[in-house]
């Protein structure tokens, strides 16, 4: 949905993605308008599958120009793709595809907690967060809480992003809303439905953009606009804690 919003707002020249839509409703109307009609501007689309995007970021994270894979063979995603090419297995096995590294200029990842150095604890849904943080030229960590160093150091296996990869760390509670943050926020489903409904027309999108982006100077304003009742409903108050792990030497 974030892709769709950026595209609909005219901020995107090129999309490299496996899926652009709205997890609630399917189609992304902003994406469709741009792709089908060039409104508000024409975009270049580079289609991937989830795994080829994952490998493209992983290649960059590993400092490699490409990674080989068997996915996609026989389909149209890889046919004539500027960044996916056939390669031989140098050991004589069946041919593969090489997926070129994607090195983002900036990755912005939201985590539960980090210290002031940017050493970041993340749990729950990982997806491609870690690969993106490693792959990008600059990585910005936003977090629910900035915590004392000792919290991070109590569980080094939970530190999925070492601080020296991080350009900036920002304490921004609720920074991933309307998406969920395990243990902190539930998914706010209503904005997905609302956006799907409003973005169906260009006028609807513009009104949405004004109300939910342009007129809100910062994240705190977003939370206020969302309303206290919603915030209260979304905030996780229960505790289901991870079993103890002893790091005593």
């Amino acid at each position, binding site marked *: 949905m974030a892709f769709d919003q950026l595209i609909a707002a005219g901020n995107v020249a090129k999309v490299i993605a496996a899926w652009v839509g709205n997890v609630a409703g399917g189609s992304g109307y902003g994406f469709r308008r741009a792709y089908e009609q060039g409104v508000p501007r024409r975009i270049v689309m580079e289609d991937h599958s989830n795994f*080829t995007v994952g490998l493209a970021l992983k290649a960059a994270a590993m400092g490699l120009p490409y990674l080989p894979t068997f996915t996609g063979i026989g389909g149209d995603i890889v046919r004539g793709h500027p960044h996916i090419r056939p390669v031989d297995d140098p050991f004589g096995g069946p041919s593969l595809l090489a997926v070129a590294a994607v090195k983002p200029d900036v990755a912005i990842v939201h985590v539960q907690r980090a210290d002031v150095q940017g050493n970041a604890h993340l749990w729950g849904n990982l997806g491609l*967060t870690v*690969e993106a943080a490693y792959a990008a030229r600059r990585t910005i960590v936003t977090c629910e809480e900035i915590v004392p160093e000792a919290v991070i150091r109590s569980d080094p296996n939970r530190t999925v992003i070492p601080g020296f990869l991080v350009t900036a760390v920002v304490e921004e509670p609720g920074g991933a809303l309307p998406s969920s943050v395990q243990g902190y926020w539930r*998914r706010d489903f209503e904005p997905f439905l609302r956006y799907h409904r409003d973005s169906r027309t260009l006028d609807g999108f513009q009104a949405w953009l004004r109300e939910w982006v342009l007129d809100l100077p910062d994240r705190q304003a977003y939370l206020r606009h969302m309303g206290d009742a919603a915030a209260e409903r979304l905030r996780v108050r229960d505790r289901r804690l991870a079993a103890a792990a002893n790091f005593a030497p």
Partner: protein
Amino acid sequence: MIATYTRRELMVVAAAREIRDGEIVFVGMRLPLLGFGLAKATHAPDAVGLFENGVIRDRPAEAFIYTMGDPPNIAGAVACLGLNDVMSLLQQGRVDVGFIGGAEIDPLGNLNTTRTSGSGSLVRLPGSGGGGDIASLAGRTVLIMEHEPRRFRERVDYITSPGHFPGRRRGGPATLITTLGVFDLSSGRVRAVTLHPGVTPEQVRQATGFPLAIDEGIDATAPPSTDELAYIRKADPDGFWTGDTMKAG
């Protein structure tokens, strides 16, 4: 006595029947997710489900989820890895069966979820997501579709998820479950196996944009049992996925 049921509910039951006990299943959202839960609750208690975001579960989430990253799908999971980790397991050949939906299909089981001009003008769809990867790498795939003439085409405009093709390394479409019936693809081409109760061969032929042989005495799809229905209605209490209107794409 069999209660009344929706076509989507029957499709969930048909999906569940495709899962054998002990299998490793690449689970999608919507109907396959319900099918996985139903299979676990009935004939396949030892099946394990992989989600493309990295989650591995051996029982369904305790609460309703809209997306696989929703907190109830994380809580109680046996493992929560990254996208590339589960895709690696898929590429290794560890996944027995995967589910994929599509907007368009051809007789070889090629699925299109990328773009189509089938209705005259260009329509952009969300893209592959993990579909292309499951189609390429799972031991076999089960396809789930709306059965409409514009969706069942002699040739799809774009092969997002490859079906059967010469030189395929592994897997391929095994079964197609539609709003009208259950079809076998294991021989390399669509063949009707059962039609849903009340559906006639003529109806199916009219809803299929390519020639399809259907025996006149073809069996009806076995309807859901009351236990199966009870499970589905507990898992999808508002009929979000199994009500009358199925979401496209």
